C-alpha cells in the first residue's frame, strides 16, 4: 500500500491511530469511526464533503482503499438482489447480453450519480415487472455459483478424508503397540517366578506415568501456542518505528582532547580578562564584533602562538 489511510475530517491516520477504522456511507466519502460516532451521535447528519443527509446505520466499514471502488462494489451487491435474472430467463443470448449491459449502465449511473432519479425509477419499475422471477431466483443458483459450491464441497470432503485416514493410521499403530505390550506381559506372567501382582502393579504404574506424560506434553504445547499468539499480538500492538537499540562493541568513552603546547601554560578566557591582558590590545570595533571577533580572541591567539613550542629544544 503506497498511501496512508487518513481521515479527511480529523486528519488522524494509520500512524497516529493504530486502531483506525474507516467508514463509508452511500455518498462514498470516507470518515473515520471516531468522526462517525461524533457527528452522527443523533443518528443522522450531513456528509462533511457533499452535505448530503446520511444516517448513522448507513455507514459500513471501508474495505477498499479507493472509496470509489468501495462504493461500486457495495452498490453492485445491492443491485444484484434485484437484478438476479439468469440466462435461462431469457429467450435469446442477445437479450441476456442486453440485460447485463443495462445492469452495468445502471451501476455506472449510481456510482457517478448521473440521472439518479431516473435510474431509481427504472430499477423500481423492473422490480415490479419481474417480481415473480426475482423471488424465484432468490433461491436459485446460476452456473457459476454452482461451480463454486461444488469446488468448496469437494475440498471439504478431501480434507475430511485426509483426517480420517490419518486418524486410522494412528489408531492402528497404537493398537499394534498395545497388542505387543499385552502379549509381552502375558509371557512374563507365565514364565517368570515373580509374583503376578508385582508385575501388574509395575505395568499399571507405567501406564499411568505415560498418560501423565502425555497430558503434560499436551498442556505444554497449548501453553506454547498461547504464548506465541500473545507475543505476536503484543508485537503488533507495540509496533514502533523508533531506532532499535543495538548493543554492539564497547561503549564510547569520551576523552577530552589534550592540547600539547610544549610551552608555558595558557591563561584561560576568564584569566585573560581578570589579569588585564585586554588593556594591551586594540579594542574590537563594532563591525569586528558583529563579525564574531572579540579582543579576547585576538589576545588569546597571540598568546597561544607565543607559547607553542617555546620549549622545543
Amino acid at each position: 500500500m503506497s498511501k496512508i489511510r487518513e481521515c479527511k475530517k480529523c486528519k488522524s491516520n494509520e500512524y497516529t491511530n493504530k486502531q483506525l477504522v474507516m467508514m463509508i456511507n452511500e455518498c462514498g466519502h470516507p470518515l473515520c469511526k471516531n468522526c462517525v460516532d461524533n457527528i452522527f451521535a443523533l443518528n443522522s447528519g450531513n456528509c462533511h464533503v457533499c452535505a448530503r443527509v446520511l444516517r448513522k446505520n448507513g455507514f459500513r466499514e471501508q474495505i477498499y482503499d479507493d472509496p470509489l471502488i468501495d462504493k461500486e462494489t457495495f452498490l453492485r451487491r445491492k443491485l444484484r438482489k434485484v437484478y438476479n435474472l439468469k440466462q435461462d430467463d431469457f429467450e435469446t443470448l442477445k437479450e441476456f447480453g442486453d440485460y447485463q449491459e443495462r445492469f452495468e449502465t445502471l451501476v455506472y449511473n449510481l456510482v457517478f450519480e448521473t440521472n439518479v432519479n431516473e435510474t431509481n425509477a427504472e430499477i423500481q419499475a423492473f422490480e415490479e415487472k419481474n417480481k415473480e422471477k426475482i423471488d424465484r431466483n432468490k433461491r436459485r443458483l446460476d452456473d457459476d455459483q454452482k461451480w463454486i459450491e461444488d469446488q468448496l464441497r469437494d475440498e471439504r470432503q478431501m480434507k475430511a478424508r485426509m483426517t480420517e485416514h490419518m486418524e486410522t493410521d494412528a489408531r492402528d499403530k497404537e493398537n499394534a503397540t498395545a497388542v505387543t505390550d499385552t502379549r509381552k506381559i502375558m509371557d512374563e506372567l507365565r514364565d517368570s517366578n515373580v509374583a503376578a501382582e508385582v508385575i501388574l502393579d509395575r505395568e499399571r504404574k507405567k501406564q499411568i506415568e505415560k498418560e501423565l506424560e502425555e497430558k503434560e506434553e499436551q498442556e505444554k504445547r497449548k501453553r506454547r501456542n498461547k504464548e506465541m499468539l500473545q507475543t505476536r499480538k503484543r508485537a503488533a500492538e507495540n509496533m514502533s518505528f523508533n531506532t532499535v537499540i543495538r548493543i554492539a562493541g564497547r561503549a564510547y568513552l569520551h576523552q577530552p582532547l589534550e592540547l600539547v603546547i610544549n610551552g608555558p601554560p595558557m591563561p584561560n578566557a576568564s584569566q585573560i580578562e581578570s589579569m588585564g591582558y585586554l588593556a594591551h590590545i586594540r579594542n574590537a570595533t563594532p563591525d569586528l564584533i558583529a563579525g564574531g571577533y572579540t579582543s579576547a580572541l585576538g589576545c588569546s591567539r597571540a598568546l597561544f602562538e607565543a607559547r607553542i613550542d617555546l620549549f622545543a629544544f
Partner: protein
Amino acid sequence: MYSTSTQKREWTYTPEKLAAVRLEINITFRQKYESVMKPEELELFVTPEEELRMQRSIEDAALKFADKFRPHIWPSVKWTALSFFKRAFLVWVPSDTSIRMVMMACFYLAMKIDEFYITIEDFVRNMNVGDPRQNAERILKLEPELMKCLNYNLTVHCPYRPFEGHLMDMKTRMLLLNFDLESIRRDSMRFFQHALQTDVLLLYPPSQIALAAINYGLHAQGKSDEILREFLRKLIGIEEDSWAARDARPEDLEKLEKTVTRVNQILKEVEKQYVAVTEQERESHKSQLSRIQALIPELDERRKAEWEAGGRIGQMPGAVTEQPVDSDDE
C-alpha cells in the same frame, strides 16, 4: 598551530643538516655537467657558501623592494616570501634558475598566502627592471613551479604574532618595570629584518625567534638578561622568593635555563650570519650568475652530443625534468 605544521615537520633543520642539504644539491648540479666541462669553465661553478652569499644579496635587494612596495605590505608577507625563497633553494640551485624572478614569484605567492590582495598588474608596477608584461608572464609561469618545488607546503608561521603575544604577556605580568616596553619595538623590528637574511627561519620555532627579538630589544635599551629570566620565571610559574624557590621543580628550572640559552643562541646566530651585502659583492654575483647562465645552454648541448656519441639515441633520461625553470634573459 606550529607544532603540527609542515613547517616543523618538513622545513625545520638542524644547522648540520642544512649545510648537508646545500652541499648535496651543489654537488648534484656540478656532477651533471662535470664530464663536459672545460677546465677554464670550472671556476664558474661556485661553492655552497658562495651560493648562499648570492641568495643573501638577492634577499637584501628583495627587502629593499618590499620596503618600497606600494601599497605598504605587512611584515608577515616579507617573512613568508623569504621563507619560500630559502626553502626553494634547498631544492633548486641559484645557477640553474633566474634567482631574481624566483624571489619575485615568492613575494607574489606570499601575498596571496597572507591575504594581501594585489593584482599582478599592480605587482609588476612596483618592479623597476624589465618590461611589465613580460615580468607578469614570467612570474605567473613560475608560480606553479614554485609551489610544486615547495611541495605545496604553503603555510608559514611568522614570529610577528608571537612577538605581540610575548609583549602582551610582559606588559601584563611585569608591572614593576621602570621603562616603557613599547620602546623596544623599533629595535626588535630591526632584529627581524636582520633575521630575515639569515637561516634562523629554517632552524627555530617562531615563538623562540620572537622571544629573541624581545631580548634583542631589551639589550638595545641597555637591559640585561635578568628581565628575560624574570619574565620566563613568571611564565613558567617559578617563585622568585628564595624560600619558595627551593620547591621549584628541577625540570622547570631546566626549561628556564634552556630557553635563555636558546634565545641567546638565536641572537648570536643572527649577529654572525647577518653580514650586509656590499655593492661590490652584488655586482660580482650578478656577473657570475649571468656567465654561468649563459654557459648552461651550451653545456646542455655538449651533454646531448656526448649522449649521442655514446651510441645512445632518443632523449636523455631526465632531460625534461632537468630543464631550467626559467632562464634569466635580462
